[in-house]
């Protein structure tokens, strides 16, 4: 399940990709914090994506995780538009027979997503200003 959505992310919906042979599910939720790394008060983040390319990147990342960590089912859902403090901006779920593969695949996927997926984030501050923020590169 690879999606870019405009509405609230319901993380439990991602669980449907698990099979009855999966004993471990690891989920990462990215949540909008109320403060930027430099301490400025944040009211919301606004995300935009180059959607077709982002979705293909999600699929590629999941496929790489499978190659590296073995049989694993993955879901990656990213929200775009304005996401307020406390809301979920991204959800990554990995389901596998045993937990090691699920942990490794989930962590790999969120790390790669942040580096590679064509998605952009604008911090909107409580003082009315705003700034585009690049993530962790390369």
């Amino acid at each position, binding site marked *: 399940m690879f999606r870019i959505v405009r509405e609230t992310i319901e993380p439990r919906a991602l669980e449907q990709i698990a099979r009855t042979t999966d004993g471990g599910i690891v989920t990462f939720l*990215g949540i909008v914090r109320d403060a930027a790394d430099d301490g400025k008060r944040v009211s919301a983040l606004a*995300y*935009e*994506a*180059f959607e*077709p*390319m*982002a979705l*293909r990147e999600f699929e590629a990342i999941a496929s790489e995780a499978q190659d590296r960590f073995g049989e694993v089912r993955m879901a990656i859902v*990213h929200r775009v538009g304005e996401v307020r403090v406390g809301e979920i*901006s*991204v959800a990554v779920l990995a389901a596998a027979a045993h937990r090691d593969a699920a942990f490794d695949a989930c962590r790999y996927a*969120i790390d790669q*997503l*942040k*580096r*590679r*997926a*064509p*998605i*952009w*984030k*604008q911090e909107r501050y409580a003082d009315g200003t705003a700034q*585009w*923020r*690049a*993530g962790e*590169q390369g």
Partner: protein
Amino acid sequence: MQIRVLLFARLREAIGASERSLELPEGACVEDVWETLARGRPGLGDERRSTRAARNGSLVSFEERLRDGDELALLPPVGGG
């Protein structure tokens, strides 16, 4: 030839549009698109080094030659998650 340019995030804001249609001479490359857009926008110069280009959905260098009908996405540094 006709090139459809997609613009995101601060490039979209700098150029004031999420999409532009450019008429370029045959044999033009990504760099030519960039120069056409940057003309009269000195602020864009700083963005050039950190911008990547995707031609029809695949990353390409700025030397990549374009063809009529291509879709060229100009991607500032990403920051999803």
